């Protein structure tokens, strides 16, 4: 089977003011895969991730050139709202709104025009089930979301993203603030979501990339050094720098 690319970046360069943080990134991401992105701090991983749904532009100093295609459509032809509905993101620290669990998940569908109570409730339940949170919160959906544990909050964020029915989900070091058990639950959820979603996982934790991803890319100082099957990257990488990083000699 030939894997179909859902996201393709062509000569992507990113800058914050005059500082270049991504250098000529050419990358293809296949539909329904989990792509891991590893690399030390300041390697451009997060900038790459946030370039995909244009969140970088929230910083007025940001600029980029090159092209990004989503399902063969240049994303510069899509409005911010349409693009971000299709490409959702999970932030590093669980970022919940200080409203109820229910309202957190319902926020997306509501801003996209779903107002019928019954329909919203269905979406909320469905999203919470997919994020493996439903059984833990179904009796207290009106509880303020900040009262959940960190791991629950992060799965709530996944549910919130799922509720707008994206095609691609970006994870920006989603487990950096979580304990191992919560991390395992988030990873479980990711494995289950593979059937219907393309997922990109930026992580500082190389072991997590090894556990979860099918293919893996290594970023260093704004360059994509190497990308390939995760097993290959971790067992016999082609580039010396990748070898040094995954075997823990730096970073």
């Amino acid at each position, binding site marked *: 089977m030939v894997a179909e690319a859902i996201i393709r970046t062509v000569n992507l360069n990113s800058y914050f003011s005059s500082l270049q943080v991504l250098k000529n990134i050419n990358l293809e991401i296949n539909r329904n895969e989990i792509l891991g992105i590893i690399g030390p701090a300041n390697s451009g991983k997060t900038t790459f991730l946030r370039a995909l749904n244009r969140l970088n532009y*929230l910083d007025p100093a940001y600029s980029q050139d090159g092209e990004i295609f989503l399902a063969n459509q240049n994303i510069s032809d899509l409005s911010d709202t349409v*693009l*971000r*509905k299709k490409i959702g993101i999970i932030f590093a620290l669980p970022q919940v709104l200080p409203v109820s669990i229910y309202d957190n998940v319902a*926020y997306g569908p509501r801003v*996209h025009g779903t107002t019928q109570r019954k329909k919203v409730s269905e979406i909320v339940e469905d999203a919470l089930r997919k994020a493996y949170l439903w059984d833990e919160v179904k009796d207290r959906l009106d509880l*303020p979301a900040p009262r959940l544990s960190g791991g629950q909050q992060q799965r709530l964020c996944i549910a919130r993203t799922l509720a707008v029915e994206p095609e691609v989900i970006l994870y920006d070091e989603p487990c950096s603030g979580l304990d191992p058990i919560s991390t395992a639950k988030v990873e479980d959820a990711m494995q289950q979501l593979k059937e219907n979603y393309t997922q990109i996982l930026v992580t500082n934790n190389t072991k997590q990339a090894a556990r979860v991803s099918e293919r893996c890319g290594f970023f260093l100082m704004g360059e994509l050094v190497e990308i390939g099957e995760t097993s290959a990257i971790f067992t016999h990488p082609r580039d010396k720098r990748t070898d040094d990083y995954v075997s823990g000699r730096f970073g």
Partner: protein
Amino acid sequence: MNGARTRQKVAFFVLGVATLLVMAPIAMTILYIIKNGIGAVTWQFITESPRNGMKEGGIFPAIVGTILLVIGTMVFSLPLGILSAVYLVEYARDNIFTRMIKLSVVNLSGIPSVVYGLFGFTLFVIFLKLGTSILAGSLTLAIMSLPVIITATKEALEAVPASFREISLSLGATKWQTVRHCVLPYAVPGILTGTVLSLSRAAGETAPILFTVAAFYLPRLPRSVFDQVMALPYHLYVISTQVPNMPMRLSFATGFVLIALVFLMNLVSIVLRAHFRKKKQW
């Protein structure tokens, strides 16, 4: 070691005395006014019009006038101030133009109130032909209140965590949906505080209403926004300086009512703020 502890004690003492010194004049002013005025504050005093050269009767028209002026000020300054602050914080790009606007806002708050009074007189009363009226007075007070409302709203908006905006935008919400649902609700307590502060200042100002609305003696209630009214601060000024043989206790009683009115407004805002805080915590 011992020296450090002694120095700490001295520092605490100095800080404590400074705090007391701040509180003392406030407490003394209020106590003095209550002590001298409370005896004259009767039901009659609050609900009747002044009689006999203002030496008898009550201050009802002035109370109504001040309340109307506060409402009028609110009507003009609240939407304008809050909307422009939202624009400055959420939409405006950081360039020379917006920096100039921000600088003007800061400078506006430093202008003496009598200058606002003169400005309101020439612009609203004469040029726009509104006459000395509630409308002209409210507009003048509104302009005076704007800088405080804008600054307070700006600070309240900036205090809302940037992550709230990121969450909303990342889910595909528009900028306006983000502001409306993920920023403004959390800024309400701060906006409320600043607004009430500026409105209570407007309620107590004499200079801006001197030429634009205040009547020396008008013992009936206004019939439209183009009427003049009596207002508490100006009435207080008049009876304290312009009327010979005025019983002092009436001045103090008027002052007491004015303070009580402002205190009541602050109380309402504190209750509202507590209510919103409870609902929106982060």
